[in-house]
């Protein structure tokens, strides 16, 4: 074995011997993807809705049916408004709907009937999603059936929409598209594993005091640093494939762009993170120190890369910061490649930036590793 191959082989052995670490490497990203993926798309499925039906007509039954089938609500019929408010209070129901007694009358007269919707606003995001789901009440599919069917085809079209919904809690949500988040989520779960693995890789030798012995061997600095990172590069690449595959299967993440470019992007992104991690490791004296530093890099990467808040909306003095975060370039490129389906020309500058990150930090880590102190 050459020294480089020996370091790679030995590093793989460390990984294989540490079972819990393997769970962290492969289990955590998929678990987090599933959690975040669902958390950020949260459909109003099986959301409990208390319904007080004062009309009991064929129309009100139709409304209840639509809520079940189209809206995906779990409809709980109640006998009084008092019951409804109690259920909303205890959380047994997230929404309450009061169907007025004059529903059938008004509809048959082509007048607008007013339903009252009570929304539990204690969890704003949930409320937002619930009201979005309740949109079926005014949707075309329901309302088309609710017009009084005049046998005379020449009858004038209805002057007013049949259903109006009065909300008790006013909330005007601006819904975000889940697909917009998903590529970023993949980037975050990969970063978490890759950055932390790399950041403890070198400092572990220091802490276990094997570094002293290594320094006395003729192994070159670059063979040592690169050899230590190669196993993590392989593992992170497999991880990325697993997570992006899961994103496709579970959340219909589209692959609009050329797959080859997504592969190149994944490799460059992983290399930039490994290099950054190795650099962190070379600056740390203990493993906890390295992990803290890694988290210190992780959080701004999530919050300042444009994952949640658009960079354009940040204050001017803060805007240069995202340019020093690999995640910024990854996000820009992966959104373009998965959602918009753009070609190489658009993402070339992102690729170049990630490559530069990888190169600079790898060289930094090698230079920081001194074999003669």
């Amino acid at each position, binding site marked *: 074995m*050459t*020294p480089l191959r*020996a370091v790679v082989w030995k590093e793989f052995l460390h990984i294989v011997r540490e079972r819990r670490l393997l769970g962290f490497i492969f289990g955590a990203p998929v678990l987090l993807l599933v959690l975040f993926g669902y958390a950020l798309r949260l459909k109003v499925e099986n959301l409990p809705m208390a319904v007080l039906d004062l009309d009991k007509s064929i129309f009100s039954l139709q409304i209840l049916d639509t809520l079940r089938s189209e809206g995906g609500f779990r409809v709980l019929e109640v006998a009084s408004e008092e019951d409804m408010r109690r259920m909303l209070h205890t959380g047994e129901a997230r929404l309450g709907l009061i169907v007025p007694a004059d529903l059938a009358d008004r509809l048959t007269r082509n007048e607008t009937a007013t339903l009252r919707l009570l929304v539990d606003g204690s969890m704003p995001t949930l409320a937002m999603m619930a009201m979005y789901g309740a949109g079926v009440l005014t949707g075309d599919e329901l309302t088309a059936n609710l017009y009084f069917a005049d046998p005379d085809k020449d009858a004038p079209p209805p002057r007013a929409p049949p259903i109006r919904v009065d909300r008790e809690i006013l909330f005007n949500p601006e819904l975000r598209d889940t697909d917009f988040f998903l590529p970023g989520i993949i980037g975050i779960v990969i970063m978490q594993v890759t950055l932390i693995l790399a950041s403890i890789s070198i400092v572990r030798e220091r802490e276990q005091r094997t570094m002293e*012995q*290594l320094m006395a*061997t*003729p192994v070159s600095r670059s063979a040592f640093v690169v050899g230590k990172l190669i196993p993590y590069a392989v593992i992170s690449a497999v991880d990325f494939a697993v997570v992006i595959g899961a994103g496709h299967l579970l959340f219909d993440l589209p692959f609009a762009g050329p797959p080859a470019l997504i592969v190149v992007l994944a490799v460059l992104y992983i290399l930039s993170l490994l290099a950054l991690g190795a650099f962190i490791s070379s600056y740390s004296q203990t493993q906890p120190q390295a992990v803290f530093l890694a988290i210190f890099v992780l959080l701004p990467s999530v919050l300042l890369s444009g994952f949640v808040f658009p960079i354009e909306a940040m204050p001017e003095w803060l805007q240069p910061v995202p340019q020093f975060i690999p995640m910024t370039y990854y996000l820009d490129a992966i959104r373009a490649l998965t959602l918009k389906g753009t070609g190489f020309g658009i993402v070339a500058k992102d690729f170049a930036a990630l490559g530069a990150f990888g190169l600079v930090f790898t060289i930094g880590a090698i230079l920081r590793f001194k074999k*003669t102190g």
Partner: protein
Amino acid sequence: MLAIETHGLTRRFGRQTAVDAVDLAIGEGEVFGFLGPNGAGKTTMIRLLTGILRPSLGEASVLGLDVVREPEAVKQRIGYVAQAFGLYLDLTVEENLRFYASLYGGADPGRLSELIEAYGFAEHRRKLARDLSGGYKTRLALITALAHRPSLLFLDEPTAGVDPVTRKELWDLFYAMKGEGTTLFVTTHYMEEAERCDRLAFIFKGQLAAVGTPGEMKNLLADRDVFEIQTPYHPQLVAAIRGLEGVEADNQFGHILRVVCRRHPDNRARLTHAATQCGLDAASVHPGTPSMEDVFVTLTRRGAGS
């Protein structure tokens, strides 16, 4: 050619001087003992000679190579067993051996099995290093440093915390290596190990206090009187003796208090007086012969006093 040669070798850490102007010459094939109390500069000396620490001043050549200019060439030719051993506890005996051997540019499978057989690892080759006893961990560290057939081996307190039987076995191995022409540079603070070395150096506060064969070292006390006083530990007696003129060192061994004094005809009378004052029998004081321990303690006290 000398295996190791240094001139004015000095290393400072901030204001502290860990190794202070050391001149040393060690011949090929020697078992050279490097003695000194904790913190005297033993490990710093080894780190300077193995090329993992740069000297502040002075020069050192190891196997004819300048350590300052060619540290990596030196590393290729020497073996080093650090105090912490540098073993990977989650790797097996064989894996540790293969890994370190490969860092020196390829592991010769024949050599590796030969070492595994010769050092008693035939049945333990697939055992994790973590599961080895203390003595076997030392052995494994030894063979990982030997796989590339270095002609000079640095051992930093290889027998610390090892039982006497294992320690003896390890020394047998050191002699076997010497027999194959390997030069050994061993740091220790066990006196009976010092006696086993061809030559010794004693370092205190970074400075060489003495260099020589074990016999020559004991001769350092040729102009001293050594006495043994038959007594369990007796604080008043120790205090009284330390106040006496000419007393350089005292050292309790079980029921014997050893005292080193500058040569003087009245030494015995003074000690006997002190002993009887503390309620001991006059016959409890009698002359002794200098031991390596006496040399060690005397040199340390002398260094501390100056």
